């Protein structure tokens, strides 16, 4: 197994580099996926999307960022100042932390935890605290309801997400993300090298649906519901703090797509059994392949957003508890049986 390129000798340098890289990846990932959403959504709606900033609107999101910077930072009088101010940070930090364990190529990860997938899921689950804090502290009824719905939704969908991931962990026999990629690389189905996503199609579906719900992405965007709750927990936010929430949403898309890539789509390998060249070329190629897979998954998320209306709160709760969770448990049983059998 390859070691991280960040395993440098002076510890402080390694840490600094890691922090920088995590932040950079977080920002770049969010901006790229944000641009993807702008354009894909626009074309699906028979329009062009941003066209003016630089070339085909490629500079739109940085420009938006600049605009957010100069906007007035408003904290409502009745708001709980500290909680209100902290909430965006709480929403963003888990994303940055999770980046640390995501493998973006052979050796291209910041740290390889033994319980990598478990850590990633645990940390990304903390994001909802930001939503809750924002919803509660805004002193706004719409925000409060958004926060409530967000919390209810997260509790319901955390379970299918973890169950879907658990099945893969059973299959791969490791919790480490690079470990899963390597295990998948050697996986064969009746002698044919195969990504996990094909035999584990149920798991993939579960994971994807649950990820959408975790991110409050349509059709599970009841907590945000702009036509109803007026952006829910974000109603009272302006400027940079609002931008932080948007960043965390897009980064969340990157993170969960990356997790799905690792778990189901073979990570940085083009296909299990097909190797990559050694050294820097392999790293670059691996990074490109990983990112391409992430972008495809993100584009599917955007595609769903373009097409579907949102589900009502009680419907999506019912979906989780009476369909996804039993399905997830069944999936685990099936996978475990198959694993022992073969």
């Amino acid at each position, binding site marked *: 197994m390859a070691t991280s390129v960040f395993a440098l000798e002076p510890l402080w340098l390694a840490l600094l580099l890691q922090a920088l890289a995590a932040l950079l990846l977080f920002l770049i990932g969010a901006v790229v996926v944000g641009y993807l959403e702008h354009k894909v959504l626009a074309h699906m709606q028979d329009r062009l999307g941003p066209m003016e900033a630089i070339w085909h609107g490629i500079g739109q999101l940085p420009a938006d960022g600049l605009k957010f910077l100069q906007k007035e930072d408003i904290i409502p009088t009745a708001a709980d100042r500290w909680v209100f101010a902290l909430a965006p940070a709480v929403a963003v930090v888990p994303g940055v932390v999770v980046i640390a364990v995501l493998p973006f190529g052979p050796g291209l990860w910041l740290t390889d*935890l*033994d319980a990598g997938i478990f850590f990633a899921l*645990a940390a990304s689950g903390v994001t*909802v*605290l930001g939503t809750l804090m924002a919803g509660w502290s805004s002193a706004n009824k719409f925000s409060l309801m958004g926060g409530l719905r967000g919390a209810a939704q997260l509790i319901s969908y955390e379970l299918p997400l973890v169950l879907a991931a658990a099945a893969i962990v059973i299959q791969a026999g490791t*919790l480490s993300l690079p470990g899963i990629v390597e295990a998948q690389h050697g996986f064969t189905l009746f002698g044919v090298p195969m990504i996990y996503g094909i035999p584990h199609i149920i798991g993939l579906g579960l994971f994807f649906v649950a990820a959408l719900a975790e991110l409050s992405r349509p059709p599970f965007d009841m907590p945000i519901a702009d036509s109803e709750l007026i952006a829910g927990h974000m109603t009272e936010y302006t400027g940079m703090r609002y931008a932080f929430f948007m960043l965390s949403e897009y980064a969340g898309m990157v993170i969960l797509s990356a997790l799905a890539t690792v778990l189901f789509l073979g990570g940085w390998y083009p296909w299990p059994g097909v190797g990559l060249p050694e050294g820097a070329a392999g790293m670059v190629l691996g990074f490109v392949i990983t990112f391409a897979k992430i972008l495809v998954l993100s584009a599917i998320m955007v595609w769903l957003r373009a097409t579907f209306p949102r589900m009502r709160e009680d419907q999506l*709760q019912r979906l989780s508890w009476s369909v996804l969770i039993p399905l997830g448990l069944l999936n685990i049983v099936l996978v475990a049986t198959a694993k022992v059998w073969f």
Partner: protein
Amino acid sequence: MSVPEVVMLATGVVGGAAALLVVTSRNVVHSALYLVVALLAVAGVFLVLGAEFVAWAQVLVYVGAVVVLLLFGLMLTRAPIGPTGQGNELGKAMPLAVALAVFAGLVALIVTSYGGEVIALEHVPPAALGEVLYVAWALPFMTLGFLLTLALIGAVVIARREEGEGPLPEPDPDEPEAAEASPPDSSSWPQRQPEPTPDEREVSA
């Protein structure tokens, strides 16, 4: 002191301080948020002790789910913002006494169990943990799981039995859609106020 000891001490202090704030804070939601800090500090302690898996489990279950559930409940009942009065006026002495007693008991337990024994910090890989949990302690683990499942089922049963408000019943999606060509049929006019039926009540967390 070595680096792990310093980190251990720091997380311990943060956790202790946060725990104190949990009980002294006037604002319930603030209390819950301090609880998050305290629980994260505990996760940090686990991490220093090399129990990586337990640390993440702490984050996933306690921070990600339990506190969220707690906040959910608080928002539902104590929606408006601001400090929440005096609350239960049983005095502060009794809770304090109980807390101190528990603390003393735990300290005594740890001291008598380990005494001055120095435990070597080592990283416990999840595989080893699994080995212990599912091989050596399989029966207690399964019993526990069984017990929790029973509790869950019980909770569902109780929740379902309770009559009361809830969302309107779902329309039956299998119900045949009114055909484009079919003539208006007054018998299929809907009721003005459909009554929620207990069977269709949502069973949520």
